[in-house]
């Protein structure tokens, strides 16, 4: 009797966790290479959700089609932010970078608030409430799509990092900036590429979320708190850690929601966060400091 309810809860948690993982992937990539926490991550996710909303409502483009345009667009946005705003404003000081990203977050959120007001908005796609049956459980179609797409993006990201010159340069800069500079790698460009990739992850996450979710000017913050927990859980800067951590956080949230009530689901995530900080501060897959 119990398992008949718990299994769907776990499956739904896994599905949601994949999208969490995608948001966390962008955050951990930027952290791993630039060694900064990007406080603008949540606001950029919010902006991406509004972009999806705008594409659907005004242009009539389905989110799953819009991703083809929004992912490159947000890549360019992230690239430009790092190259022309964050990088030059930081003057090489990490504490400055934190403040600059925080400032960008404030600007983006308030600009969205001004344009879209504080209302919560949704879109109605024809498949918004479709379900498919999987082993006796009914799963929401947008969440299933989100799950597979999130893994596809993670796989693509892995391929870029492992196989291309730019990807190898990103990994090189992450661990040995001076050596990279002296090998002819333009570090400012690589930083911006990394920031662009991390931001593109958000655009994809937004397209996957919007069919079954909502947007308002502050919605990104909730995600980024969870994503930050995932980054710490998986190990700061670890890409596989972000994936595993994301799925885990999704399941924890879903089970807590099941036992404690829907609105308390995220308590489990933050309890987990505190436990990780207490007992394994380097995270599940993190290297020792």
């Amino acid at each position, binding site marked *: 009797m119990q398992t008949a309810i718990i299994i769907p809860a776990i499956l739904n948690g896994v599905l949601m966790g994949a999208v969490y993982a995608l948001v966390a992937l962008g955050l951990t990539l930027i952290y791993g290479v630039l060694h900064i926490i990007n406080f603008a991550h949540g606001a950029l996710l919010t902006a991406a959700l509004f972009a999806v909303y705008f594409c659907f409502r005004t242009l009539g483009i389905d989110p799953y089609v819009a991703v083809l345009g929004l992912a490159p667009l947000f890549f360019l946005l992230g690239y430009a932010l790092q190259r022309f705003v964050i990088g030059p404003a930081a003057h090489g000081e990490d504490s400055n970078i934190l403040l600059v990203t925080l400032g960008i977050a404030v600007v983006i959120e308030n600009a969205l608030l001004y344009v879209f007001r504080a209302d919560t908005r949704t879109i109605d796609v024809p498949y918004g409430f479709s379900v498919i049956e999987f082993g006796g459980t009914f799963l929401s179609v947008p969440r299933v799509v989100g799950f597979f797409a999130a893994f596809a993006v993670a796989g693509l990201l892995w391929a870029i990092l492992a196989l291309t*010159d730019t990807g*190898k340069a990103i990994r090189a800069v992450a*661990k040995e900036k001076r050596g*990279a500079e002296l090998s002819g790698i333009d570090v400012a460009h690589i930083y911006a590429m990394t920031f662009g990739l991390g931001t593109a992850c958000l655009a994809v996450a937004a397209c996957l979320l919007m069919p079954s979710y909502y947007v308002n000017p502050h919605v990104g913050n909730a995600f980024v708190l969870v994503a930050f927990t995932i980054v710490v859980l998986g190990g700061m800067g670890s890409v596989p850690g972000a994936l595993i951590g994301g799925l885990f956080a999704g399941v924890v949230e879903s089970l807590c929601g099941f036992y404690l009530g829907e609105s308390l689901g995220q308590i489990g995530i933050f309890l987990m966060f505190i436990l990780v900080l207490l007992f394994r501060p380097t995270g599940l897959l993190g290297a020792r400091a």
Partner: protein
Amino acid sequence: MHTDPILEVRALRAGYGATEILCGIDLLVKRGEIVAVLGSNGAGKSTLNLAISGVVRVRAGAVVFSGETISQSSASSIVGRGLVHVPEGRRIFPNLSVHDNLDLGSYRRGRAHREENRERVYGIFPRLCERRTQRAGTLSGGEQQMLAIGRGLMAEPQLIILDEPSLGLSPLLVEELFALIARLNRAGLAILLVEQNVMQSLHLAHRAYIMENGRIVMSGSAEEIRSNPDLKRAYLGM
């Protein structure tokens, strides 16, 4: 036989913050030459290298490479011109394989001949070939030094700066390293060698500069410096 200058440093000043480390350095490397820069710890040798290769900003003076001023160029564009700096402490990419470390050496320059240059480096360092799939961070100190030099060679340098390449190597490996430097030079490569290993460097180099407190205090042919007892006592602590 060496006449045409490949690198000219004129009245170079550089430093960090309020501290000036280099107080007007003049230095010349001609094509095909090995030039040694010697001096004790803290004399400013590494800062000089970093200023030449565009990592530390040049405050005054000029760096001219192959007839073009590069004092304000970025580090990556300087590599693009064929001036490659193999830094002190190796600075290899510990999380990447030996193979990928070498490939990134040709990120900016030499990409068209990447395969053949990689094979050439494996020919020079068969040990690296054996470990091509291993993560570079797991290599021994000597192997890491080979990798750092190999990565530098991947960019098809016209001039290579070797900063303390013998640091931390066993005497036998130092022997091998110096033999390799001589071999690379015989193949036509100009080398700026920064070393604390004074006598061996003076045997290898054509000319040498002695640095002290951010200044060049003596320069001349390696032979002259080697046979000057006062100089050895005063600056090289021998």
